[in-house]
């Protein structure tokens, strides 16, 4: 895996890597991806279930309830005049 490829993947993952990290991860990922190629030899069952056991949707009753106080969730966030502050969108 070349450094440009690592840089592209890191951008998708919202990670800024140092030159040293990129060198190291390029080697590590190369090793691991090479190992993953064993999957090419595995038979394809054609079954692609996302969970190991069957799961069905479960809907809760539509009842008004307070689970967690919204105010307590805001405690861990940066707020300004009861609004959550975030970075610029552009």
């Amino acid at each position, binding site marked *: 895996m070349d450094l440009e490829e*690592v840089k592209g*993947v*890191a951008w*998708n*993952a*919202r*990670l*800024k*890597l140092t030159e040293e*990290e990129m060198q190291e*991860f390029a080697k*590590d*990922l190369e*090793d*691991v*991806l090479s*190992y*993953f190629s*064993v*999957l*090419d*030899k*595995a*038979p*394809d*069952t*054609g*079954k*692609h*279930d*996302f*969970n*190991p*056991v*069957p*799961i*069905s*949707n*479960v809907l*809760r009753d539509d009842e008004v309830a307070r*689970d*967690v*106080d919204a105010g*307590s*969730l805001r*405690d*861990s*966030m*940066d707020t300004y005049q009861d609004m*959550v*502050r*975030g*970075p*610029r*969108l*552009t």
Partner: protein
Amino acid sequence: MSCHLTVEKLVTLNERYHPFSDLTKDLSDLTDYPPKFHFSAKDNICALGFQARAGSKILDGYRPPFDATVVRKMREADGILIGKTNMDEFGFGTFCTNSAFGVPLNPHDVERSCGGSSGGAAAIAALLEKHVSLAESTGGSISCPASFCGVIGFTPTYGRVSRYGLIDYANSLDKIGLIVRAPSDLRRFLPIISGPDKKDPTSCVQPRLELDGFKVKSVAVPEEALRNLDPAVLQAFEAALGKLKEQGIEAHRVSMPSLGFALAAYYVLATSEASTNLARYKGMLFGVRGGHIDQSFNDYFSEVRSANFGKEAKRRVLLGTYTRMVGFRDRYYLKALAVRQLIIKEYQGLMERDDAVLTPTMPFIAPRFTEIAKMKPLEVYQADFLTVPPNLTGMPHISLPCGYHDGMPIGMQFVAPHWEERRLLDVADRWCGEFKIRFPGAIA
């Protein structure tokens, strides 16, 4: 009756072995002991009154405003939560050396690893009498540390225990379970933590938990699982097979070719899911905040993630992002899903004749930290080759101590069909009825 456990004793233990990442300052609630009991929760399980950092610097300072369902159930059953146990960052590790908050030390030898990622949970179970640790496994994070610390690690069927309040690693793999000292603890606490929970749909399809009514008569032992083992592990395992035979449990040597694909399939799925789960950590909602708010959101998020994720977290996020990218999704992700079904089918085939599948838990005894430092990432991943298969399939499994080498414990791992936890309880009762587990020292 009062408990001999004091905060001072816990602090002393923590200074020596570092099992906790957050510790109670008050044990006055333990005065009615029993019926009250003390328990700990792995640091990726949310609990009121404690930080929940999942071993990550990016969650430093996060105090959840609610209890995870398992914590609520344990508290309702008279449990007193004494602390959060240290772990590899987000569960990413085999040796519990990837936490931002120190490294727990093996109670049998402080120069060696506790195993990961529930290292603190296994260490404190080994150190404290009558303690129960809530742990969590994605690819072996209960079995591995239980094996290295010489205690019992129980991973229930995927979906048996609600994960509401668990900080996700990989949603199709995460399971909350127990690390304890005795099978009687499993019989007591498994029914408490199990059961449907409307807050976690994956817990709502489960059949009733049965504890009794099955006597294991035979186990399948895959030949593929006996390769590349430390000779001491193989010797202890073979000796255990002999003792099991005396207890009426016959071992049948079998071949399980799909095991050769399990590790790759697991790491593809686990890192793919982890890379999406970790997208929520961006310096706004939990834990540490980002720097300059005037930056664009991409720069802001990237900066805080790059500064606060550890090396292994970055490695796995990169790996998972890569395997989900256009052009690779079919080759890696979809193939890994197909392989999971293949392995489930092969386990089910084996368990048509035999009642469980048995292997050693880990290929070696707990390694020294100096040895771990020399291992490449792929070598670390490959150490999971025995614990990954049952985790990938969601089948319940248990690691039991089965021998010792140089004073260090060796574990064996039984795997049962989905929802058949009672088979594991049966083998645990029978094995521990005769095998003497050595604990490194108790204080309460």
